[in-house]
C-alpha cells in the first residue's frame, strides 16, 4: 500500500514537471526572446548606415563586413500580421532563440546544413533572402505566418536601405523538401517556419518578390 502511495505521488510530481515544461516552452522562452530582441534593436540602431550612392551597377547591397552568428542584420516588418522584429544572422538553435534568422553562406561560424553553399543574398539583391523563425516557442515570431495573403507587404529595413517585397505564394511542404534551397535569379524573400502550429510535421514557406527599393 505504501508503494502505491509513493508511486502516486511520483506520478503527480512528474505531471507537475510536464506542466512546468509546457509553461516554459510556450511562455517562458518568449520572455528570453523579448529580452534579446530589445538588446538586438539597440545594437541594430547603433550600426552605421551604409551608403549606396552611385550607379546601380556600383551599388553594394549588404553589410560592410560579414556578420557573425546571432548579430542583428536587418529589421523585418509585416504590417498585415502586426510583425516587427530584428533578424539575426544564422539559423542555428541559439540564433533562432533570439529572433528570426537569416540563412547564411558557409563561412567561419556557420556549418552545414545550417548554411548555404550559394553566395549569401541580402535584402535588395537578386536571389533569395531566406529567413527562418519559430512558430511555437521563443516568442513564436512566425505564429501568424499562415495569415499572409498574396499582395501583403514584407518590409526589410537594412543599413543600406529599405526594401519592400510582396507576398506571391504560400506553400506547405515536407520537412526534407528542398523547395527553398533552390536559388533564384529574381529578387525574392522566402520565410520558413514549422507547420501546423504546435507541430513540426511540415514546413510553411512564404514567397515574396521585391517590388520597391
Amino acid at each position: 500500500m505504501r508503494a502505491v502511495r509513493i508511486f502516486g505521488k511520483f506520478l503527480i510530481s512528474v505531471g507537475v514537471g510536464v506542466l512546468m515544461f509546457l509553461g516554459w516552452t510556450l511562455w517562458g522562452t518568449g520572455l528570453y526572446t523579448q529580452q534579446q530582441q530589445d538588446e538586438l534593436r539597440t545594437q541594430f540602431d547603433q550600426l552605421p548606415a551604409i551608403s549606396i550612392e552611385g550607379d546601380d551597377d556600383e551599388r553594394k547591397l549588404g553589410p560592410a563586413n560579414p556578420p557573425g552568428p546571432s548579430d542583428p542584420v536587418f529589421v523585418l516588418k509585416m504590417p498585415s500580421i502586426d510583425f516587427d522584429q530584428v533578424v539575426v544572422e544564422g539559423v542555428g538553435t541559439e540564433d533562432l532563440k533570439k529572433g528570426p534568422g537569416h540563412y547564411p553562406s558557409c563561412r567561419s561560424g556557420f556549418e552545414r546544413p545550417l548554411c548555404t553553399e550559394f553566395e549569401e543574398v541580402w535584402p535588395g539583391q537578386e536571389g533569395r533572402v531566406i529567413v527562418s523563425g519559430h512558430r511555437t516557442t521563443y516568442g513564436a515570431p512566425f505564429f501568424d505566418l499562415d495569415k499572409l495573403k498574396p499582395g501583403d507587404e514584407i518590409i526589410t529595413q537594412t543599413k543600406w536601405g529599405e526594401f519592400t517585397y510582396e507576398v506571391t505564394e504560400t506553400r506547405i511542404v515536407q520537412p526534407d523538401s528542398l523547395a527553398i534551397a533552390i536559388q533564384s535569379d529574381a529578387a525574392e524573400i522566402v520565410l520558413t517556419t514549422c507547420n501546423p502550429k504546435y507541430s513540426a510535421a511540415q514546413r510553411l514557406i512564404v514567397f515574396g518578390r521585391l517590388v520597391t527599393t
Partner: protein
Amino acid sequence: MKRSWKSRLGELFLWFLVAVATAVVMVMLSEELLPANF
C-alpha cells in the same frame, strides 16, 4: 503515528525536485529532438 511538519515539508520539497528534474529533462530533450524553428 503523526508526522512532524518538518518531515512533511521535506517530502514536499523532494517531490518538487522530482518535478523540476522532469521539466529540465523534457526541455533538454525538446531542444535535441525538435527542429530549430519549432
